[in-house]
């Protein structure tokens, strides 16, 4: 009995906080932070390290949660909260997700769901943007992505925590073996895209200097475009969009690669023909100085 009394006294502040209604009215981002910095210190700190806080345009509290406490959590969990910015920032990011089965289910069923529930296992039939990237309310979005550097192998120390995190998130709905196979094939698929990019880079490195300024600009244009196709493969894998893995990805890279080679081959042919006409002309392999 005495224990129970202690328990009640101990829990009173908790009841008081839980029962407290969030204040009505409109707030600015600075006002949100001034209050939440003490009650959700970890959350604010996580947001501060995230790319939402560190890169412009900054996605602050108001941008995702709105200026009032009305519906502020539920609305921020829905895809609409992210799409407004991310569709404009990079269509491939938004579109690769929008054409996935996950997005289809969310779009068709979101009006039936109770979005006041936390972004956690069993609460949602399909994942929206926030379910995966801000899983369980984790505000540091960097924990779920690594930077895409097509020509650098990913450091295991940077990759592994992210991979482990994804295994857990995907594993909330899918079987562990399924998650592992999807992750495995995704990695191999991106590896192949990287190979195509490296092959093109080697061709560019070998022949670029010999080209005229105009040809060089053309080649650089091709090679830069190719990098966005490489990124599409990765987005397609991450967002499970067959279209981005394939049509916007692999065959597009194939086309880029053969055009890079074609640009160089055209130049080499002209060079060989010129050389043959000159007295020192001879049989020279392409690419040899």
């Amino acid at each position: 009995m005495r224990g129970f009394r202690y328990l009640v006294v101990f829990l009173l502040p908790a009841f008081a906080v839980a029962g407290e209604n969030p204040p009505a009215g409109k707030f600015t981002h600075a006002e949100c932070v001034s209050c939440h910095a003490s009650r959700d210190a970890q959350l604010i700190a996580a947001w501060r390290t995230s790319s939402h806080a560190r890169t412009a345009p900054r996605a602050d509290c108001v941008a995702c949660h709105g200026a009032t406490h009305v519906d502020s959590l539920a609305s921020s969990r829905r895809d609409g909260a992210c799409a407004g910015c991310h569709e404009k920032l990079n269509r491939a990011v938004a579109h690769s997700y929008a054409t996935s089965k996950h997005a289809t289910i969310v779009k068709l069923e979101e009006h039936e769901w109770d979005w006041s529930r936390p972004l956690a296992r069993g609460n949602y039939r399909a994942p929206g943007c926030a379910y995966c990237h801000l899983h369980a309310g984790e505000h540091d979005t960097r924990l779920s992505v690594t930077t895409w550097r097509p020509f650098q192998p990913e450091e295991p120390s940077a990759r592994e925590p992210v991979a482990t995190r994804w295994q857990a998130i995907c594993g909330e709905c899918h079987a562990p073996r399924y998650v592992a196979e999807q992750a495995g094939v995704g990695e191999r698929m991106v590896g192949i895209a990287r190979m195509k990019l490296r092959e093109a880079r080697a061709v560019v490195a070998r022949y670029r200097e010999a080209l005229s300024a105009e040809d060089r600009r053309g080649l650089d244009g091709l090679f830069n475009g190719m990098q966005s196709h490489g990124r599409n493969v990765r987005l397609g894998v991450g967002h499970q969009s067959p279209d981005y893995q394939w049509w916007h990805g692999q065959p597009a890279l194939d086309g880029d690669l053969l055009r890079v080679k074609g640009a160089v081959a055209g130049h080499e042919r002209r060079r060989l023909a010129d050389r043959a006409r000159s007295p020192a002309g001879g049989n020279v392999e392409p690419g040899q100085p």
Partner: protein
Amino acid sequence: MTHRRYLWVTLIAVLLAVPAGYAYVHWSKSGPGAGLYSRAWTPDPVHAYWDPDRFYESVRTLPGEFQGEECVACHQAVTPGIVNDWRASRHADPGPDRDPVYCSACHGANHQALRMPTPKVCGQCHENRVAEFLDERRYGFPSHALAMERAVDAKHFADKPKAEVASCLQCHSVATKCDSCHTRHRFSAAEARRPEACVTCHSGPPHPDDETYFASAHGRRYLAEAAQQDWSKPLVKGNYVTPTCAYCHMHGGHHQVADKTIWKFGLQEVNPNTSANALRRAAWVAVCSDCHEAKWSAVQLKGLDLERKRAWARLYRAEAVLKDLRAEDLLHPGAKQRPPYPMDMMERFFPHARIGYLDGQASAFYNVSPIERDYFEMWYFANLGAYKSAAHGDGVAVERWHSTLDRSLAAIETKAHALRVQGEAETKSLGRRADPRRLWLEGEYTEYNRERN
């Protein structure tokens, strides 16, 4: 006497050739992969989920047999998401006097020998729908039912690294799993009636079905009014204010998308006026007549024929330009100087640049000369974009794609001229064509692709 001998020789040759042919096909299909080139490749492990009948093997996590509520009780804790889905499905609550369809009905009871359900499994109850779906095979490809077979039989599928072409399987598995359209574990008919259910696969450059439909008058009305629509109603006259993909292509819920196709995929020119196509046209007009006047619908379909004629006039001109270049050995690299066309035995002896549908250019989008790729893109992207725009009623895009076709043709002609000039200059100065072999046969991906399929 001699005549008789010829007869015998022919007869014996035929008697030997026919079974030998069967034996060869049987042999070629018995490799570790699937389809005609199954001996040339081994599947990526993920293939098991896309073609479970062929490649899936059960997990062996738990020994024993489980049924009905036993599965649900345990999986409510292990995988609550799918159990929640199932509870919201008709399988869990099929109506009065009917037992729920539990996990074990589809996955089997033995936890050491579980199966991933395929149309065969769904057909145990949904026999009419699966029969309609299988009936598509009569009409050939494009169809959902033949999608997996045709994917693995594509030469580029057999040739390319299997992790790369794993992306193909996600869509082509529409032939091997019903959950491509009715996502697991809710398997809702209402979901599949909506256009969004189709766009994961029916989007992208060769088949912008999503963009062209959503930009059409039908699609715009869908976007404006979908929320007020009752999607539990069957796809028949009077139930919907605007048609969706399924309303027209699977009218009445008929799981047969191949029986009405006149222009197929738009990859070949067809004669739209054959007697078989007259029947298909009548079937289309019947669907359109749910809302429109029959005569008006027939005129619209005629419009599609005219659009196709316009497109093919340009495509044939571009094809002719390429064939001339091939005949004059002006393609650079030529067929002998680049990795061979995949999965073709004769290719080793007679290298040959592939131009046009019948020559197999659908698999020749990599390791080819830039001008061949230009034509591939004109044919596969601009032409098919124009076709889908015309078929779905996106008039603005039809004109946009046709100007792309014009520009592509002009660019191909200009490039062909340059190749000819360069080729002539080369013959004059070198006495032969410059050999770019080294550039085209070497390279990290090129070599990896050659070594792995």
